[in-house]
């Protein structure tokens, strides 16, 4: 039964996993960068920026990710004339979605810092930039880390959507292996079970770590 998981299959699954990881890691890097900037921007007391950010967030949030993937993958090539590969469109969609979700997390963690922290920073003679850099952001960071790790696992899980627009990532490779071994009745069970397990191995440590941080810092 386990003969199906030979070296050949494993190396092919690794190639698929590589694409999956590539999509998630690149989007996570872009997400953390833009999420932080947007979140800090949103927490400034400017009503127009806030309303604009909030509007885009709700707009991004209300549609399933798959619909955004379709819009970018099918739509962009028609409207803008650029032909994006499915992997690139997945990275674009996940980065945009992640950035705005991250923005909300950053905003709420910045706002959860009590007001007197800002005031005491001011009374120490720090200017606004210094106050943010030395006092507010380090504190907000502690509240932010566990929740953003939650978002991270969600992003890793969402990479499976890329399969639906034809990206050759882990799920697709698994399916190819199953088709190749179609005489083996147990192939779907083993391969899909194995992929299930891979995702669990990737995501579970992150969940555990975020829970640990939450306990430690709260």
């Amino acid at each position, binding site marked *: 039964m386990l003969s199906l998981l030979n070296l050949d299959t494993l190396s092919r699954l690794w190639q698929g996993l590589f694409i999956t990881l590539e999509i998630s890691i690149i989007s996570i890097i872009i997400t953390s960068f833009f999420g932080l900037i947007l979140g800090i921007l949103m927490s400034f007391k400017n009503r127009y920026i806030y309303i604009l950010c909030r509007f885009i967030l709700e707009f991004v*949030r*209300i*549609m399933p990710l798959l619909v955004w993937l379709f819009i970018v993958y099918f*739509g962009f090539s028609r409207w803008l004339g650029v032909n994006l590969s499915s992997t690139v469109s997945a990275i674009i969609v996940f980065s945009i979605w992640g950035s705005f979700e991250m923005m909300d997390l950053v905003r709420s963690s910045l706002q959860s810092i009590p007001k007197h922290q800002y005031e005491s920073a001011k009374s120490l003679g720090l200017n606004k930039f210094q106050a943010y850099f030395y006092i507010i952001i380090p504190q907000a960071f502690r509240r932010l880390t566990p929740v953003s790790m939650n978002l991270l696992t969600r992003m890793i*899980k969402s990479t499976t959507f890329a399969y639906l627009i034809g990206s050759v990532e882990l*799920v697709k490779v698994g399916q190819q292996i199953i088709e190749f071994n179609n005489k083996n009745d147990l192939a779907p*069970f083993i391969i899909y079970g194995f992929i299930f397990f891979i995702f669990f191995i990737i995501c579970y440590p992150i969940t555990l770590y975020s829970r640990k941080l939450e306990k430690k810092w709260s």
Partner: protein
Amino acid sequence: MDLNFIINHLNVFIAAAWLTLKLSFFGIVFSIIIGLFCILMSYFRIKFIEQICKIYIELSRNTPLLIQLFFLYYALPKFDIHLEQIPPLNLICLSVDETLRPAFACAIFGLSFLGGSYMAESFRSGFEAIRKQQFEAGLSLGFTKLGNFRYVILPQILAISISSISANIIFLIKETSVVSIIALPDLVTAMKDLNSLTYKTDELLFLLFMGYLCIILPISLILFFVEKRLSNA
């Protein structure tokens, strides 16, 4: 934009949206039941089942729905496990076409499997926020343990975690978009199939977008008002 095309194919999308709604309805109901079950187990301190619930929650939260569905749909029948014949699911499956029943049962099972853990986590956060005295106060008023849960604990859990419950509901509706992989004719399938036939991508993307908007926007508005009512209570 070809308006005629949109009008001609509207019925396909309405049928597809109806399927999405049905799926999400059953998925949400079952996941709330599963979540309640998990929290009841920790309320009654039934250690063994509580542990099983914990393992289940970790498994389902850390794996994507797509893989869960693939596993249910392709792997289980090889072991002669047919979800569409298992009691509560077989009755629900009567509402769809016979050829769709296996996929429909899998989709509902998968959605409840995924959603149940999310609901359980929401309920748990509410459960842990309730003060100790509340548990004793109800008992001292003469409620039974179950009555105490029903009349004292549960309303407080709902009031505390309503925002995350409604987030989960929206999440589950959005997550139904994955069921196209097991050949259920939902909105995504309709878009994909018609796109490969007609190449009217703009119109179809518009229909897809509007389909989800018509489902999710009203529900999220309703949830928003429910949330407001409950948080004032």
